């Protein structure tokens, strides 16, 4: 039982931290520039492809990860300068249409370059197996690679916290999220700030995509499902708030993991078998959306609104 609870808690943490890497960039772009970026998931996908391709060329996962993240950051820079800059002043509808178009382009470009089949690549050999921890009631096993993901996720979260909460740039970012006009009036180069935030968000996307690549699969369309989850996270956490994104990610990660693990068994114990077989997976899938609707009902600005 200890093993099960501990394992599921770690699974929730791992999932949540990866969501955080995606949500962090999204919430800042959203909060500061007031820009809906549906193509954020595409950056995740393209980043994962960059990492997979670079890892194959370099024959080293870690070199590939570094190169892929750098490549995605560069792509983010190009996109920001050429397109997103023109979108900030437009209404949400125009942003939805433009970034939806970007999704189409990104998916098709990836398909044209890397082919329609998914790329499966493996984590570094040393991390392919489980790690064993001695516990009072027998050993506890956990996949080594997932532990690495958790470690990287925690490190990035800590770094981001220091950057946003303690540094001067972070102060500008927070000021920008709270009141853009006022920040501009104070003479801060908002344009450069926007570019920096966007590029940073793209790099975080690629980091998540690259780390998850060996665990999941690198394929066309992988960004769309994860994009929705990232949106749920930032709505729960409050748009523009890094702290909200972290809390929201961990909530969504844990709720989703526990829902999948516990709900079917719980329903089987209480409902007729047939109803439970239908309801279990359905409820497990919609749990986070119910959660979001509930939170919005009671706190329409999310848990940690950036604009107080």
């Amino acid at each position, binding site marked *: 039982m200890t093993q099960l609870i501990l394992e599921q808690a770690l699974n929730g943490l791992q999932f949540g931290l990866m969501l955080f890497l995606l949500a962090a960039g999204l919430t800042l772009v959203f909060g500061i520039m007031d820009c809906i970026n549906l193509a954020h998931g595409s950056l995740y996908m393209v980043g994962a492809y960059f990492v997979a391709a670079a890892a194959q060329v370099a024959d080293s996962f870690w070199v590939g990860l570094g190169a892929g993240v750098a490549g995605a950051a560069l792509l983010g820079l190009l996109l920001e300068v050429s397109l997103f800059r023109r979108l900030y002043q437009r209404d*949400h*509808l125009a942003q*939805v249409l433009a970034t*939806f178009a970007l999704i189409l*382009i990104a998916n098709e470009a990836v398909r044209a370059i890397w082919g329609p089949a998914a790329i499966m690549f493996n984590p570094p050999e040393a991390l392919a197996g489980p790690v064993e921890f001695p516990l009072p009631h027998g050993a506890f096993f956990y996949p080594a690679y997932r532990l690495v993901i958790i470690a990287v996720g925690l490190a990035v979260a800590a770094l981001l916290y220091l950057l946003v909460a303690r540094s001067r740039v972070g102060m500008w970012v927070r000021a920008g999220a709270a009141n853009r006009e006022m920040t501009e009036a104070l003479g801060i180069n908002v344009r450069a700030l926007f570019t920096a935030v966007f590029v940073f968000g793209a790099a975080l996307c690629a980091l998540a995509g690259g780390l998850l690549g060996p665990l999941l699969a690198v394929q066309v369309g992988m960004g769309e499902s994860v994009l*929705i989850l990232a949106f749920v996270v930032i709505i729960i956490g409050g748009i523009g708030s890094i702290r909200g994104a972290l809390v929201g990610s961990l909530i969504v990660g844990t709720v989703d993991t526990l829902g999948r693990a516990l709900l079917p068994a719980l329903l089987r114990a209480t409902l007729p078998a047939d109803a439970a077989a*239908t309801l279990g997976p359905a409820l497990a899938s919609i749990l986070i*959306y119910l959660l979001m609707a509930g939170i919005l009902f009671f706190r329409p*600005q999310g848990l940690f609104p950036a604009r107080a």
Partner: protein
Amino acid sequence: MAFYRPARWQRPATLAGLVALVALPAALTALGQEFYIGFATRVLIFALAASSLNLVLGFGGMVSLGHAAFFGIGAYTAAICQQAGINEALFAFPAAMAAAGLFALLVGSVSLRTRGVYFIMITLAFAQMVFYLFVSARAWGGDDGLPLAGRMTLAGFSLAGDSALFFASLAALTAALLAFGRLAQARFGRTLQAIRENETRMEALGYPVFRYRLVAFALGGAVAGLAGALLANLTGLASPNLLQWTQSGTLLVMVIIGGVGALYGGVVGAAVLLGLEEVLVGFTEHWHIVLGLLLLGIVLFAPRGVAALFGERRG
């Protein structure tokens, strides 16, 4: 954005278009291109769905990213009716409208308490819930979707022939557009558009803003349900793919291309998008790239949609 008022050329143009459409199946049959009757029906059905979203988005100013839920519920209701032995569209289609409309009423009554981005996301959340519900519902085919055994009958006439379904879809679209056109100029529509322009002022003037919006939202949902029921008849399947959020995105894109708040915006958008798809597929396997670039071009250079290029007057 100003209030909707039909341009002077609109009525003759509409009549000419209608005549051309009525003659279309016979013309295609004469040319031996029956395949395109099915394609044209698809365009009409998506035009209906996009027009219903345009009522919500264009006239009501509510950016909903969950419209696919109502579209899909309509399709499923039709399929479930048939599964229950009801093969008459005169019953099944209103049932689809009622189911989708009632669900829209529920979604609207919760979502319309939020504003802006939060509204976009909460409508999306509801649509995702519906998606996962149908994917998991074993009785309704789960992930496989619910197939129809064959097309339904409408007032006793079979819709099995491609032309029959074409005319049924054309009739539905014509009726919906007539109704929306009337509505937009009636007291209800003018109030709705005034709320879109300045919600606070309308509230201060004592208008029940929430109720107006809710009615428009539910009406849009019901018409989307009708489109869904027609589509289920066309494809012979109520599929969970209809409920995916990208489907909501596609409908949104159709409205934006065609022109938000233009009466024929949904029609133009559906025709342009599906037509482009049909043409581009013939040229390149990677037609999505071309489509994406075109959409970007529209955002950057024709912000009011394609319909605006033809100068539909707004006020």
